[in-house]
């Protein structure tokens, strides 16, 4: 049984109780996920979190140990890869080196015996603006061109579901930006369901309608990019998606509208609606760009959290903004991103400063504070190195 017709439109994808074990380790513990038709959905996570395995399961390149996969309401768990109305843009593009660009794009159409495969292939190549290179071999194209051929080769089949496996990972920054926009506009044009796997949070946030952050074989949090960013629910999300200042302490006061946490001798207020837990030990946080730096002690107001005084231990200027790291007694380091509205950095290393932020910008996390130390909030080189090493170790274990 081969799918012989084009999908009318994108289809829903449903993963029910998926588990995947490889000899020696479990890639996916238990996964339930529904992706509505026509959406651009991103699975975001570090290497080894199980996101690529999820994609391969959907494509039919791996079989789940347990659970079911439904596409457009039809159970496809038992069908083989070539029988599924799904196409993939591979990370390495996987363009057939022994065929021309045109033959590559027409490959799927020919296998399904769809009429006029070459005409349709040309049409798809025109969509990605590469029709003039149709007779070239893939290895004669640049990285960005190869990426577009891979995309054309997949969408020409009008799959119900298009899978993108880090398709922009091999491109340089400028090209990646350009391709992000192109992908997004093509998705809007053809109206398919896109499932995009990436470890690049910026890529996921710019392109997807919905982002699911994956960690250790499970989804940590799912939602619109701005919701995930402004209101992370776990330490992992707070640190993987951008950076965060996190403080752990006990809830000492609760009103209908807000909770107050005492951390390291300071009081931090978070709106109840933005906090996942309302009693006991909790972790609360704020994004560094929401934090304001004061060179003199400001007057305390109930609608702002105020910490300090602390001492600046590092200033790094990056053009648009300046990043300050402030050592605050009892609270560890606080990270501040300040727009360079004036000329150059406003403070220097060693200066005594205070920091404050709008109570409404804080958030409270759901994790057990005991586990919260996995990704410390400071941006010191050491912790980045540790995080990367951990990611690497996981990746090596996966291979």
């Amino acid at each position, binding site marked *: 049984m081969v799918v012989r017709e084009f999908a009318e439109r994108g289809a829903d994808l449903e993963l029910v109780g998926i588990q995947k074990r*490889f*000899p020696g380790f479990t890639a996916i513990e238990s996964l339930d996920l529904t992706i509505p038709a026509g959406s651009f959905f991103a699975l975001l996570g570090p290497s080894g979190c199980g996101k690529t395995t999820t994609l391969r399961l959907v494509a039919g*390149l791996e079989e789940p140990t347990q659970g079911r996969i439904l596409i457009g309401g039809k159970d496809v768990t038992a069908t083989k890869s070539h029988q599924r109305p799904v196409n993939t843009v591979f990370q390495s593009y996987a363009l057939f080196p022994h065929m021309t660009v045109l033959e590559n794009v027409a490959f799927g159409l020919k296998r399904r015996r769809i009429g006029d495969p070459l005409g349709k292939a040309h049409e798809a190549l025109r969509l990605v603006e590469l029709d003039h290179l149709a007779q070239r071999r893939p290895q004669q194209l640049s990285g960005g061109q190869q990426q577009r051929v891979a995309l054309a080769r997949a969408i020409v089949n009008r799959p119900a579901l298009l899978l993108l496996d880090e398709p922009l990972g091999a491109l340089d920054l400028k090209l990646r930006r350009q391709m992000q926009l192109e992908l997004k506009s093509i998705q809007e044009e053809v109206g398919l369901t896109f499932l995009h796997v990436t470890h690049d949070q910026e890529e996921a946030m710019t392109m997807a309608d919905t982002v699911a952050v994956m960690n250790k074989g499970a989804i940590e949090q799912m939602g619109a990019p701005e919701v995930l960013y402004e209101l992370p629910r776990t330490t992992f999300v707070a640190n993987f998606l951008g950076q965060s200042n996190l403080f752990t302490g006990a809830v000492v006061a609760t009103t209908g509208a807000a909770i107050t946490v005492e951390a390291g001798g300071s009081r931090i207020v978070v709106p109840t609606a933005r906090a996942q837990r309302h009693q006991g030990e909790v972790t609360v946080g704020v994004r560094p760009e929401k934090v304001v730096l004061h060179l003199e002690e400001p007057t305390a107001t109930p609608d702002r959290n105020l910490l300090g005084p602390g001492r600046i231990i590092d200033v790094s200027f990056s053009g648009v903004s300046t990043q300050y790291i402030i050592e605050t007694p009892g609270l560890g380091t606080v990270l501040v991103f300040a727009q360079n509205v004036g000329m150059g950095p406003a403070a220097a290393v060693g200066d005594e400063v205070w920091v404050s932020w709008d109570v409404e910008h804080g958030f409270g996390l759901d994790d057990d504070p005991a586990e919260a130390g996995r990704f410390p909030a400071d941006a010191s080189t050491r912790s980045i190195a540790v995080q990367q090493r951990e990611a690497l170790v996981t990746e090596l274990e996966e*291979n």
Partner: protein
Amino acid sequence: MAFAAFATAEALPQAPKRRSRIALFLLLPGILYLVLFFLTPLVSLVLTSLQAPSEFGDIGQYDYAFNWQNYVAVVEAYLPHILRSFGYALVATVLALLFSYPLAYFIGVKARRWPLLQSLMLVLVIAPFFISFLLRTLAWKQILSDESFIITSLKALSLMAPDGHFTGTPFAVIFGLTYNFIPFMTLPLYSTLERLDTRYLEAGSDLYANAFTVFRKITIPLSMPGIVAGTLLTFIPAAGDYINASRDFLGGPDTQMMGNVIEANFLVLQNYPAAAALSIILMAVILVFVGVYVKRSGTEDLL
């Protein structure tokens, strides 16, 4: 396994492997073939080596037995041949290494910027493969015969005794072995040297090593896999060879190696048990050598 590490292409990570009946279908014919025509013959050889002469039979008739004295007998009779085999092979291997290393270094490292020149030089290295092994050995026999230009010139220059010979001496046999197996030494050396990242050498000289130290401490260790593969590829066939040592080629009566006596016993004297016992000894020594050598040089992944 098996030296595959030196093939030109890099291996890519493979997807988690499948277990499937297809594997059985793919493996079975070839493996069966090797069991039938490689493994069983080895067993045959062991059985033959223990045979005893048939009581009533003619020459060449033997019965299955457990006549392990065959081994004692062949070692007693052919000890010089056994020692010669491994001795000649060892010297030829060392000479081939000394000859090949600079050549492989030139092709693999110095000629890197001219890929076409590089591949044409490789063609020259394997060119001897294209002409019959026996004919090129015979050619040397003629070129180095007593009446030849080279030998008469050497005698005229008093570099050789007036009544001296070259062919028929151990030197000629070792010379022939060296010449014939040079490509087997040069190619694996070339493959490792070709992938030698010269930045390591630059780093070495940056860290105050002189040219010789860089060579000894960096180049040699990094090319160890090629050295190991090359020496094995030269030593194994050289130890079993009997063309070069044969009287019709470069050898003489006092240069006979194990291969010559195995051939004579099997094909001429029809003393099958002796030939088989000698073969088993040859193979056992080589396997022990391979095992120890590979372990000592720390390149166990080779196998």
